[in-house]
């Protein structure tokens, strides 16, 4: 299917208007900063590995500056934040990331004799697919349920990606323009601040 896309700049422009409450603006504006900070939790090599993995799960070839997800994960793990629950079969989050990212590198070594970050994208994708299918080789998977690790990694990267205002623009979400509420709720009834997908 031809994916719809929404006009660039919609959300950036909206955030400057009085259609957005101060609380919402204060939450979203800092997230537009996509610069990569030095890691606080991961060591440099593991951090670059996570960046490379995130870039295959959320490839963004069209963006001059991709939305960086590894810094968000790094910050959470450094702070020890939780979303309130964890699969009992999984070790604590920091240990799960250490084991899981290590397992991804073990799979890369086993299948292509090189660390993940040195592989071309098609080979990286094969590794991700093997983790997603639960077939990736590697000693670490003896200690970590591979299916749950992939689910948790995917869910966290997904929440971080779609929390970004530009990713919300990509899917045509403008709920952040929250001052006036919505008056046209019926299908196909849009309001002025709701972007129409380009054909």
């Amino acid at each position: 299917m031809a994916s719809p896309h929404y006009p660039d700049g919609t959300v950036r422009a909206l955030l400057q208007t009085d259609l957005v409450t101060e609380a919402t603006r204060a939450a979203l504006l800092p997230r537009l900063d996509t610069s990569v900070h030095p890691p606080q939790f991961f060591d440099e090599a593991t951090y670059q590995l996570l960046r490379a993995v995130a870039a295959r799960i959320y490839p963004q070839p069209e963006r001059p500056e991709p939305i960086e997800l590894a810094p968000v994960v790094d910050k959470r793990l450094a702070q020890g934040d939780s979303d309130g629950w964890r699969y009992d079969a999984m070790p604590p989050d920091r240990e799960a990331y250490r084991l899981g990212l290590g397992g991804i590198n073990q799979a890369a070594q086993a299948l292509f004799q090189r660390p993940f970050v040195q592989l071309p994208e098609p080979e990286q994708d094969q590794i991700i697919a093997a983790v997603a299918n639960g077939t990736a080789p590697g000693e670490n998977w003896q200690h970590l349920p591979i299916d749950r690790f992939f689910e948790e990694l995917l869910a966290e990267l997904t929440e971080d990606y779609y929390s970004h205002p530009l990713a919300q623009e990509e899917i045509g979400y403008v709920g952040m323009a929250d001052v006036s509420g919505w008056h046209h709720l019926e299908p196909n009834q849009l309001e002025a601040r709701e972007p129409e997908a380009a054909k």
Partner: protein
Amino acid sequence: MPDEEVLEEGVLNPVKPEIQDPLLKSILAENAGLLAEAPVELEQPAPLPDPVDEVDCVVIGTGAGGAPLLARLAMAGLKVVALEAGPRRDPTRDYATDEKAQHFLFWNDERLSAGRNPVAFGNNNSGTGVGGSTLHYTAYTPRAHRGDLRLFTDFGKGVDWPFGVEELEPYYEELEHFLGISGPTPYPWDAKRRTGYPLVPLPLNGAALLMQKACADLGIRTSPAANAALSARYYQEGIGWREACTNRGFCQAGCNRGAKASMDVTFLPLAEAHGAEIRAEAYVTEIERDARGRVTAVVYTQHGEQKRQRCRHLFLCAGAVETPRLLLLNELALTSGQVGKNFMAHPGMQVWGTFEEDIRPYKGIPGGLISEDTHRPPDADFAGGYLLQSIGVMPVTFASQMARKRKLWGQPLRDYMRSYNHTAGINILGDCLPHDNNFLELAEEKDVRGLPKPRVHFTAQENEQRMNAHAEKLMRQIWEAAGARDIWAFERYAHTIGTARMGLSGDDAVVNAEGRAFDVPNLYICDNSVFPSALSVNPALTIMALSLRTADKFLAAQQRLDR
């Protein structure tokens, strides 16, 4: 002998009786010497200040279980203090229309989810802050049906409640009026109600309209649902005007204008107007008792400081995970062996589809439309039943659930999410039977406070699985009739229920039919943990009804004692 009391108090007796016994005399002298020589022990923790101000009632938790009874007790003239683990916030100033920024609404202390269907906590069902989980509830407020409370009588499975729905009806009526619930009158699945809803239903959004039309084609009755959000400006007794809902669609991450009837804009201001004190960021760790087993005080941590509040009665209203956790940690009310047992979670299966129409699932009250034709489906191969509802959804929640279920990644993931605006969902809320394998326990692993984390085991049993299969088939039919493509189902379980059940006997229940612990005469429990069965409707309204009833039963018992 009137002097005896004075002597027993030990403070008003000015005479130091001389010790006659020579042996006792020498022992006392020795001890006195030891005490004088003993070094000052700096290592010893300073004893907690023990304020003499004993209050009538301490209420732990300010959600749907704690807030209504707090107001009721305060209005009866009692001195009441509520302890809330989370902070107090100002929704108009602090609430962003952003899912990530609203993370603070959820109980984010890590819980361990075990079993074959591990239950998600946090934003799925567990809140914190002054107002508890009502800060993030969808405001969906159907009443329980008569049959929901007598599952065992009707099916020979599960358990009956110790009373019938007629006990709850006066409270449902009171709540619908007080909170300003918007809903259909007459109610299609309960036409003989004594009272109607005070406000007309909220407008239907895209998902609700699609479901309405498809159900009509299939011969399934639907109606705009009862929601505790105001379809018009509403004057609430004791509080003042609350503004109407603007269809912002963000109920599950906090209403920023007080249109949704969360406890922080309804019962809690009412309670405070009548003298109740609410202490926020007060995390309870200990419940103290005297030799007779009566609760005497609660110990809590607030802003890094440990404090004690003495009380004559304790109301534990911390939800079906933290309530049994506190009981287990304090070895309180455990003789029935039922604390932590019978954990139930509502089957909440969702079915999603992609439509030609531009839906914009972020607009409008999320649960706009309901059908209760499936309350007792004629072709059911399971006990109990479920309700159907249309659902709106915010992008991050939707993306996260979709990723967990469909495991898309790379370009297909981004491509799928670009159809977000054309996505609409239906879900069920179904009954759940208690089962031995589903329970809460304390884990070895500790939280940041050094207390054991709760571990919750949940596996959907045959009854839930059959209900899910029945519901998935029906919801797929509805969405096919509505013209959806790429239909997929997400099996999930919502709400936390049943871990300190109510019953007729202390042999198989933790609290009696009035909500009082069988073991502890001045301990009441009121939240979803006391539900004997899960009900086939969302729990919030029934928790609030139980809360008012618990307060009334308590007050009546006090009057009997006073006479």
